[in-house]
């Protein structure tokens, strides 16, 4: 039986992508409760609120306004993100009639869609093998996995648009001639750029810089510039219409951008930073771990040096140390070979890749002109361009050598096999373990009793009522946030009255004043996991002393809810 080659290739890609999805969904395959940091909570609740309420909104409900009321600088107390990303997740949540899996799965598919766009573009421009191997290596890119787990959801999806936007422009530019004036690619590019704005405006600026670099490089290479005002005008109009569809959020983007560009906020990086690709980890202490800035830890290290030596190296390490680690790393060497191959050949497709790399470099050095906001976020796109160049370096370096064609082919397949083996050996274990163990601690995910209590609050108390969660210790604070999110009710934290010394002797009086007319929630489900026993005693005493005369509304599985009214 003859197998259709295209079907075989499509099947291989589907298998690779499903493998990626299997790994990327590990954090919620066996724990059907939401997880993640503060950002993840905001994204989940925006989507969940729409699906649960069965209605969209612009003005923020109280539980969202409490934390995000001023995030839209153009019109405070309204939705600060462009709606599509969260509406997408809400659509799937409503379609599948579930609050957890559809939202987290849609996010996993969006976040891993960089595999789809990189495969598609590299397959189209360089062939199947570089495309599939790039996608395969990207499955394990820790610089994608970590922000995905932390909760930078829209940003992960937005980066997948960059290769497609550049591809559309590339196709329009390279195919444009007197005979062929098909503007479809340019119009699709404009729609993708509009969608890119919706998903994450920062990334849209990255796409625009990419187009700018690509125009210059292709114009020089092809000695032509397809200046068709009608096509450009229509594309611009499409983008403008898309931006205008959500005026409040586009206004917020414009205002935020204008504010970040004011002189008083500007911090200019020294020129010497141009010599390195990534930002200085010291500028992000407390925001992201140092290892996030390590090429070896995030993209991979295929070499013989021990773990300690690799751990010492970062973007701010001295040159000798860097050279020692970089030049014993086969991924880094392949990356350099990829640059050499593309520079040597300078075909239009090679220039596409170089333009993408240059635009990434320019974006990473925008702090030279004083724009340093979210520089570390932009760095999360590094693997998307470094990995395809490294794969092309490893597979196609032989194309510029004067050796027999048969040998070239043999070496290409040996390299491909080596890439698969080394990826599985070096990259997969860390990525798998990180995803498999993510948020495994019972202190980080709400338990069944907390889900049930949250659902009770959602169903039984007024939408504008305040819920005071008494005593979430710092190590379980994240759970109080998730419960607020799950119940769609404001959760005003009261740990201070138990833990902080400041209210002193009047602690109980101060607490009473603050919680007046609130629903007060005591959650002891995690009490066995907490170490500070004296605090636990204070916690129990607080309830005993203050709740005796108030109405107990909910009492199940060590969670109690009172209505605290003046007595």
């Amino acid at each position, binding site marked *: 039986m003859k197998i259709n080659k295209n*079907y075989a290739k*499509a*099947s291989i890609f*589907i298998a690779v992508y*499903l493998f990626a*999805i*299997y790994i990327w*969904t590990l954090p*919620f*395959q066996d724990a059907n409760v939401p997880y993640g940091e503060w950002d993840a909570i905001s994204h989940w609740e925006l989507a969940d609120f*729409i*699906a649960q*309420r*069965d*209605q*969209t909104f*612009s003005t923020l409900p109280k539980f969202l306004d409490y934390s995000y009321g001023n995030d839209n600088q153009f019109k405070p107390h309204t939705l600060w993100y462009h*709606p*599509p*990303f969260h*509406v*997408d997740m*809400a*659509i*799937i949540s*409503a*379609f*599948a*009639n*579930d609050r*957890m*899996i*559809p939202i987290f*799965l*849609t996010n996993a*598919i*969006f976040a891993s*869609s960089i595999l*789809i*766009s990189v495969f*598609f573009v590299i*397959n*189209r421009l360089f062939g199947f093998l570089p495309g599939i191997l790039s996608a395969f290596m990207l499955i394990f890119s820790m610089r994608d996995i970590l922000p995905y787990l932390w909760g930078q959801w829209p940003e992960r*999806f937005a980066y*997948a*648009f960059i290769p*497609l936007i550049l591809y559309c422009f590339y196709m329009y530019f390279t195919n444009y001639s007197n005979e062929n004036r*098909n503007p*479809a690619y340019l119009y*699709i590019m404009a*729609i*993708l750029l*509009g*969608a*890119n704005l*919706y*998903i994450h405006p920062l990334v849209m600026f990255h796409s625009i810089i990419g187009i700018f670099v690509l125009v210059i490089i292709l114009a020089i290479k092809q000695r032509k510039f397809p200046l068709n005002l009608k096509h450009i005008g229509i594309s611009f109009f499409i983008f403008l219409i898309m931006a205008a*569809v959500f005026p409040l959020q586009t206004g917020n983007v414009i205002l935020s951008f204008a504010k970040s560009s004011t002189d008083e906020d500007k911090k200019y990086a020294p020129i010497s930073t141009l010599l390195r690709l990534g930002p200085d980890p010291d500028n992000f202490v407390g925001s992201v771990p140092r290892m996030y800035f390590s090429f070896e830890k995030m993209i991979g290290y295929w070499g013989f040096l021990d773990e300690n030596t690799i751990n010492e190296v970062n973007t701010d390490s001295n040159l000798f140390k860097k050279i020692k680690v970089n030049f014993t790393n086969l991924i880094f060497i392949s990356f350099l070979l990829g640059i050499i191959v593309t520079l040597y050949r300078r075909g239009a497709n090679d220039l596409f890749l170089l333009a993408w790399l240059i635009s990434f470099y320019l974006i990473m050095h925008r702090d030279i002109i004083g724009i340093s906001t979210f520089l570390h976020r932009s760095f999360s796109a590094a693997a998307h361009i470094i990995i395809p160049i490294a794969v092309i370096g490893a597979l196609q370096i032989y194309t510029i050598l004067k050796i027999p064609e048969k040998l070239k082919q043999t070496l290409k397949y040996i390299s491909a096999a080596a890439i698969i083996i080394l990826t599985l050996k070096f990259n997969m274990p860390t990525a798998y373990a990180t995803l498999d163990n993510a948020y495994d601690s019972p202190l980080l995910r709400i338990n069944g009793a907390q889900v049930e209590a949250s659902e009770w609050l959602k169903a039984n108390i007024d939408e504008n009522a305040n819920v005071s969660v008494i005593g979430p210790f710092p190590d379980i604070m994240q759970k109080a946030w998730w419960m607020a999110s799950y119940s769609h009710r404001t959760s005003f934290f009261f740990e201070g009255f138990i833990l902080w010394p400041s209210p002193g002797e009047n602690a109980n009086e101060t607490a009473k004043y603050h919680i007046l007319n609130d629903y007060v929630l005591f959650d002891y489900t995690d009490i066995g996991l907490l170490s500070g026993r004296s605090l636990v005693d204070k916690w129990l005493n607080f309830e005993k002393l203050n709740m005796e005369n108030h109405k107990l509304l909910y009492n199940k599985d060590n969670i109690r809810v009172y209505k605290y009214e003046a007595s």
Partner: protein
Amino acid sequence: MKLPKIENIGFIAAATAAIALFFYFILGFSGMLSILGIILLFIVPTYLLLDNFKLGQDEKIVFAFFIGAGVFPILAYWLGFFISFRAAIAVSFIALTASAFVLRKYKNTS
């Protein structure tokens, strides 16, 4: 009315079934419904629209997913102010799919 011809419909159907089954095994019924929702709501209507242009099938599928995720929610969001969100999803699906057929008819007659 002439229906659009989707190339390799047999392979696409088999692949979709395999994908749905895969999601059922790793995430249960909810996971399977979610992936079918993504395919049906984000990809299918936009694919039918893009089918009116000279593009490769892989281009149509990939662009359909990314454009669908950006454009479908525009309709659902604004309609969701006036009707129930679930009804808005259905109306958006019908509107986008119908516009693909209208565009096809227009292109065939012009």
